[in-house]
């Protein structure tokens, strides 16, 4: 049999996505698109005050409403649900899915209603009257740390969730601190630049809000729970624990997920409540979050204050860095809340060879929505603090910001490089990324353009930022629910391939990239492969998609599982062809002896034989299905350089982004088209943070940006065309050499845009501007005030 077609290699190609046909035709199934017979709707009554004691809850009007199945107060829910679990090792206050006696942020659930009709659910929730005794609220973390005007959780003096976590040079494993080296570095320094910076609170706002449908089947004793989540396996674990079921009795499904950006990692009160009530009432129960709810009930991101001191010699050599972090984590610890700011600490060395670093972290409770991961999760904050400080240093030393960076880079020969924070950077060539970015931007010429514009009175500025991020978690020591990923590859009886992956995507395109890998690995057409994900009933194990890990960790697990099947398939083929397995090649849908394609057997023939093996080759079991768990020995550390040009309207302070040049290095790329999309999305969010996004509260804890009327997210007209390019520095950590790219765009863009704004306003003597770049703030600088 001769090969009928020649298949091109797909890895590295800009292949259009396999998930798109359903999405562009409105045929995809998101959680709100699912209906189960008998389904009830859940609605939450939420606190409209930031801090208060619940005096009474009058549910009588709701109880009496036509179509209302049940009403539960927090106290009643507490009989069904243990306190909210967390995954971090720090002490945490009692947190109930529905508040029992005290509410601590606007949006905290206080009661729930279950009705057959979504509209009636809202009517009933609105008919519940909650009477509170108002307590003082605190929204400023530095104020909260004084313990006044109020302590939010009785056992947490001065509102300190995590009083003090030291890291860096001279910190022992038991957290004892020896400051000698750091102090000496600062004493010897010729210049020290210090700045307090705020990395402001953001609302992640995936366009699909959260939603859940829990279906407990009485008699069968099993629970199926669909949720718009990033990690169905983690959901399964916690739903089982919280509802008293075994993990074998819970099937968690992440259907199509409409964006997540870290905000759908957490397992939320609403998921537990829906599951518990479904079990209790024996009814399928759906809850879909309103956008107004999402702004207060879905975890926020960032919100860290950084006190940065950077010490250097006059020639630009950085000799020391201090980073004192105060993270405002909101009212409670969620699953991973406490861990996110530790990533900021971990990345304090950025791309630089800094000999002495002291980073410390304090986490503080305030009367706000809890924080957790948001795209980048801790690393954009680190990048921002260090890059802003480098920029200020460059300005202080009157050095070109690129030259200052270059002078301090960790050089290629230093990898693997262990930073003072203990991170082991896998590989990197920062100079190369910088050079390419400078070249693509036309840096020297850009400076001339800027100066020419300035000469005409325009306020034009340039910004440059490097970044390195830690991603591709594990190993397991670095992630509390496990740092591995799982995959299974099955050659079906007809020779087609089914694969499952624990990396449950929500827009990342894994169905395409993973199929590209398998297509090359097996030499079969893409169309013969189906990637299954997002269903614990189908995918036996998994961790999930976050931290830019799905390709580096999930992709590798798949590659390994594929490799195992391939070995076995080769043995069957060898028996069939009567050749030696080592002489076989998998190409163009055939398995044949190298150099003699006519000897080949089709995939279908070999598969058929493997499932009806007469005779059964010695030492082989029937079937072609293998699984693999992959745990990387280390994280990966992608990096890059972003450059921006920005103009500020002198009269109004309105900033306009004119150019954004990005060079990113994520190692080997499976599908550059998808990678471009990931970078674009990251840039949009990073620029959004710099320019227009900020979640704000009034002093009494009322959200003042609780809808899209006041919380801006970028629109198409806000951006110029992005200018992308990449360098390729593979990682040794996994056999694919892939590092992960999901978050990268949010790291470099934010500080480089702020740097450009500062540069544009340099004539006014400004050295730093806190985000966001609110026009009024810029206008005030221009007109003589302070930002």
């Amino acid at each position: 049999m001769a090969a009928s077609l020649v298949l091109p290699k797909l890895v590295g190609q800009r292949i259009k996505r396999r998930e798109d046909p359903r999405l562009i035709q409105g045929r995809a199934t998101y959680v709100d698109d699912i209906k189960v017979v008998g389904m009830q709707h859940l609605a939450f009554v939420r606190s409209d005050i930031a801090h208060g004691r619940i005096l009474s809850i009058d549910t009588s009007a709701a109880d009496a409403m036509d179509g209302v199945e049940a009403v539960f107060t927090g106290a009643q829910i507490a009989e069904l649900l243990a306190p909210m679990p967390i995954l971090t090792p720090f002490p945490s206050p009692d947190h109930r899915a529905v508040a029992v006696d005290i509410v601590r942020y606007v949006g905290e659930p206080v009661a729930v209603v279950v009705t057959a009709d979504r509209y009636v659910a809202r009517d009933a929730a609105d008919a519940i009257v909650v009477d509170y005794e108002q307590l003082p609220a605190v929204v400023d973390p530095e104020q909260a740390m004084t313990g006044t005007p109020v302590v939010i959780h009785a056992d947490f003096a001065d509102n300190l969730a995590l009083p003090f976590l030291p890291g860096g040079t001279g910190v022992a494993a038991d957290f004892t601190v020896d400051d000698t080296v750091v102090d000496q570095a600062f004493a010897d320094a010729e210049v020290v630049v210090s700045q307090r910076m705020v990395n402001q609170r953001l609302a992640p706002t995936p366009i699909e809000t959260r939603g859940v449908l829990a279906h407990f089947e009485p008699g069968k004793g099993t629970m199926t729970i669909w949720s718009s989540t990033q990690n169905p396996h983690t959901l399964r674990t916690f739903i089982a624990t919280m509802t008293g079921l075994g993990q074998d009795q819970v099937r968690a499904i992440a259907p199509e997920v409409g964006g997540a950006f870290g905000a759908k990692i957490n397992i939320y009160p609403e998921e537990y409540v829906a599951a518990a009530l479904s079990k209790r009432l024996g009814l399928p129960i759906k809850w879909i979050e309103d956008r107004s709810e999402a702004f207060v009930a879905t975890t926020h991101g960032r919100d860290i204050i950084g006190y940065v001191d950077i010490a250097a010699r006059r020639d630009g050599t950085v000799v020391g860095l201090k980073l004192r972090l105060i993270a405002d984590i909101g009212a409670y610890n969620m699953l991973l809340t406490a861990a996110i700011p530790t990533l900021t600490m971990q990345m304090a060395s950025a791309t630089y060879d800094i000999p002495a670093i002291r980073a410390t972290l304090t986490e503080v409770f305030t009367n706000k929505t809890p924080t957790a991961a948001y795209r980048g999760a801790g690393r954009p904050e680190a990048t921002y603090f260090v890059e802003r400080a480098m920029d200020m240093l460059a300005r202080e030393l009157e050095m070109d910001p690129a030259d200052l960076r270059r002078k301090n880079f960790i050089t290629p020969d230093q990898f693997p490089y262990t930073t003072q924070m203990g991170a082991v950077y896998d590989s990197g060539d920062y100079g190369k990324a910088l050079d390419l970015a400078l070249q693509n931007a036309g840096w020297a010429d850009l400076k001339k353009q800027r100066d020419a514009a300035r000469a005409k009175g325009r306020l034009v500025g340039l910004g440059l930022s490097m970044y390195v991020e830690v991603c591709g978690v594990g190993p397991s020591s670095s992630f509390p629910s496990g740092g591995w990923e799982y995959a299974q590859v099955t050659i079906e009886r007809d020779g087609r391939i089914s694969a499952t992956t624990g990396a449950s995507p929500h827009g990342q395109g894994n169905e395409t990239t993973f199929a590209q890998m398998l297509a090359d690995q097996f030499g079969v057409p893409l169309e013969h492969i189906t990637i299954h994900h997002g269903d614990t009933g189908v995918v036996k194990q998994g961790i999930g998609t976050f931290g830019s890990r799905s390709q580096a960790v999930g992709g590798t697990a798949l590659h390994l599982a594929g490799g195992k099947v391939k070995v076995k398939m080769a043995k069957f083929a060898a028996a069939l062809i009567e050749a030696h397995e080592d002489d076989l090649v998998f190409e163009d849908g055939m398995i044949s002896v190298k150099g003699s394609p006519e000897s080949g057997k089709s995939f279908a023939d070999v598969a058929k034989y493997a499932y009806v093996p007469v005779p059964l080759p010695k030492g082989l079991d029937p079937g072609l299905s293998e699984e693999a768990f992959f745990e990387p020995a280390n994280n990966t550390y992608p990096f890059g350089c972003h450059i921006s040009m920005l103009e500020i309207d002198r009269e109004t302070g309105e900033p306009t982004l004119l150019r954004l040049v990005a060079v990113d290095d994520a190692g080997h790329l499976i599908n550059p088209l998808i990678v471009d999309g990931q970078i674009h999305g990251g840039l949009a969010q990073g620029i959004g943070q710099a320019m227009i996004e900020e979640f704000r509260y009034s002093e009494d804890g009322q959200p003042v940006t609780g809808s899209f009327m006041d919380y801006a997210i970028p629109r198409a007209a806000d951006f110029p065309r992005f200018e992308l390019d990449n360098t390729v520095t593979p990682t040794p950590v996994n056999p694919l050499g892939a590092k992960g790219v999901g978050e990268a765009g949010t790291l470099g863009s934010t500080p480089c845009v702020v740097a450009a704004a500062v540069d544009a306003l340099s004539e006014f003597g400004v050295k730093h501007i806190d985000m966001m770049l609110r026009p009024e703030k810029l206008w005030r600088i221009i007109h003589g005030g302070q930002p």
Partner: protein
Amino acid sequence: MIPTAFDYQRATSLDDALAKLSASNGAGKLIAGGHSLVPLMKLRLSEPTMLIDIARIPDLAGIREQDGTLEIGAGTVHHDVATSPVLRQHCPVVADTAATIGDPQVRNRGTLGGSLAHADPAADYPAVMLALDAEIHLRSSTAARVVLARDFFQNVLTVDLAPDEIITAVRFAPVRAASYAKLYQRASRFAIVGVAAALDVSDGVIRSARIGLTGAVSHAVRLTTVEAALAGCEPTSRACAEAARLAGSDLEDINGDIHASETYRRAMIPVFTRRALDGALARLTVQS
């Protein structure tokens, strides 16, 4: 978000609408494009018990020219105003203003009458209606009356409109030398300040200027000080800049919010007044 329940009636003609409105004894609430009302109802900030739909009344929509006067039916959607050839030719400022409202979908549904009746302090149309000295035509089941724009806008969301009245149209003499300048609130895209300026120039002299301001105070107002300063000036950029400096200086109770403090808003009034005047001047040049 889900609105509270209500009854619904669709009016087939203006008379039908007026009859339904008066029969409702104050309970009836008009709905045109619904793009101010429905969002409020969904958030339960407005809970009418009866809606009377006037969106399909044939004569309520449309842009007409009559004896040198332009008339825009109250039911005309923003998109149709923004793209109207008649307006583009004779009074482009109105089309420009409509084009700054919301986004394409909003412009496809929202109506002029709804915008004026709702009178959001940050809405765009009121400024241009003031600059054009437009007449706002009202009808009830018993009477018709005309209110000048400058008398119509009275306070936050408050206009000279009785519960049983319907805005039928606005009418104005077209001005080519007019333009609208808007500082966008970056989330909602409503106006932080919006200024519409219209110039009447003959023989190289500004005979009169009319300037409408929105976004800055509780309701749209005329900038009479600037208008007075411009009267009799030469139509130059410099004269306009000079006069614009005064803009808003006599206004009290300037709005302040998280997007723009009172100080900033106040400072933006002259800036956008000058920009609007410059825009008007540019049209003058094109004209002559």
